[in-house]
């Protein structure tokens, strides 16, 4: 490495434009996975709380499988797995299933749904029994009580922990780069392979990830202040 090339990108700032190209993919992936994961988690929590037959044990199995295995294995399984079966290859789903973006999103969403369901269920179990009794006394059914009173309360209490979960998804989205998706981590790896300027490239990528973590933490704090305003 000669001296003049080293000086031309002194603080590594010249890598920023290239790295930021991947920021959009990282954000899209995080946002879509959080959204789908949250919807699934709410449905799963409903199934567990109302103890719906058959579905109940299916949800438990989903939680066991997705919390008991590494996220990277799940991503590989969803992306490479279906190719083994002609059933999938001939189906209409194939264009979606052969798309790395969709596979990474699905894996992240299912993974986050499993962890978030545990979180939400725990929050519901921690709601004071008096709240349930008050709802029943007002003549509500179990579903009504859950939808109108218990769930809104429980979700608010679970917000701080859910904020951590969102950050975990954002960090987990970096694994999408292993199935050829060009996200922030993908561009960082490519830049590193091209320039061999490992320390600078990965430091710059790290700074961007840290900024994302910081922004997300702030947003969740703001949301918490709003959602828990009644308890102050």
């Amino acid at each position: 490495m000669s001296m003049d090339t080293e000086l031309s990108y002194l603080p590594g700032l010249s890598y920023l434009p290239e790295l930021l190209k991947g920021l959009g993919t990282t954000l899209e992936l995080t946002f879509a996975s959080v959204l789908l994961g949250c919807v699934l988690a709410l449905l799963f929590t409903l199934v567990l709380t109302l103890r719906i037959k058959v579905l109940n044990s299916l949800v438990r199995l989903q939680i066991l499988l997705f919390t008991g295995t590494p996220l990277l294995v799940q991503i590989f399984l969803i992306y490479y797995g279906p190719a083994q079966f002609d059933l999938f290859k001939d189906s209409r789903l194939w264009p979606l299933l052969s798309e790395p973006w969709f596979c990474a999103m699905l894996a992240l969403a299912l993974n986050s749904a499993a962890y978030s369901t545990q979180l939400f269920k725990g929050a519901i179990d921690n709601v004071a029994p008096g709240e349930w009794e008050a709802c029943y006394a007002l003549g509500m059914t179990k579903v009504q009580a859950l939808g109108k009173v218990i769930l809104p309360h429980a979700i608010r209490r679970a917000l701080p922990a859910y904020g951590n979960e969102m950050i975990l998804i954002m960090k987990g989205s970096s694994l999408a780069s292993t199935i050829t998706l060009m996200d922030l981590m993908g561009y960082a790896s490519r830049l590193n392979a091209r320039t061999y300027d490992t320390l600078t490239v990965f430091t710059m990528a790290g700074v961007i990830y840290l900024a994302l973590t910081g922004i997300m933490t702030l947003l969740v704090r703001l949301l918490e202040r709003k959602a828990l305003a009644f308890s102050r």
Partner: protein
Amino acid sequence: MDASSLIDALSRYSGLFLDATLMTLGLALSALGAGLILALVFALGELSRFRPLAWLTALVVTILRGLPELLIIFFVYFGFTHAFFLLTDQFIELSPFTAGTIALSLIYSAYASQILRGAMLSVASGQKEAAKALGLTPPRTFFRIVLPQAWRHALPGLGNQWLVLLKDTALVALIGINDILRQAQLISVKTYEPFTWYCMAALIYLAITLLSQNLINRMKQHSSRYVREVKI
């Protein structure tokens, strides 16, 4: 693939998977050992009365927690060689196993230090005062009085973090360690059966997770055996 060919393949590859499982366990356990020591250092650093040291430790821990695990592993593995080259003008290759252990123990310790710190703060200050009154030296007080009590509070959190560490070991397959995931990758490329072999990997991880959970529960019971329960 039908059942007989599956059994055939299983008997052919079971040795490889056994080696890979031992590799994963060895990596996870060595990262756990190094991580626990590092976590203790971080926790004591953050509790230190010398403010700059406390701030510096808090900064390091925050950075480690805000970065994607994959980035930390790549940073250690590729970055070490680069840093060593910049400092001494020589190329030295860090073995993937060493790099994996360093990176995983750093990640583990960043989270575990927070658990340990909380646990140490939860030991009543009267205990320390009593030890002082009995004439015990500060190090002796810490190792004989505070730490054994903090351990009971810390165990559930540390156990959870161990499960996270176990799943994070899958990432080191990407820097070339022959662990469970990499073995699954190699065999599925050879046999064109990605689904079967990634499922196999997932099941091994699941088995280790369930076994660890069982062990952690027993340790929890053991560590709180002298806590009297009130039966109503």
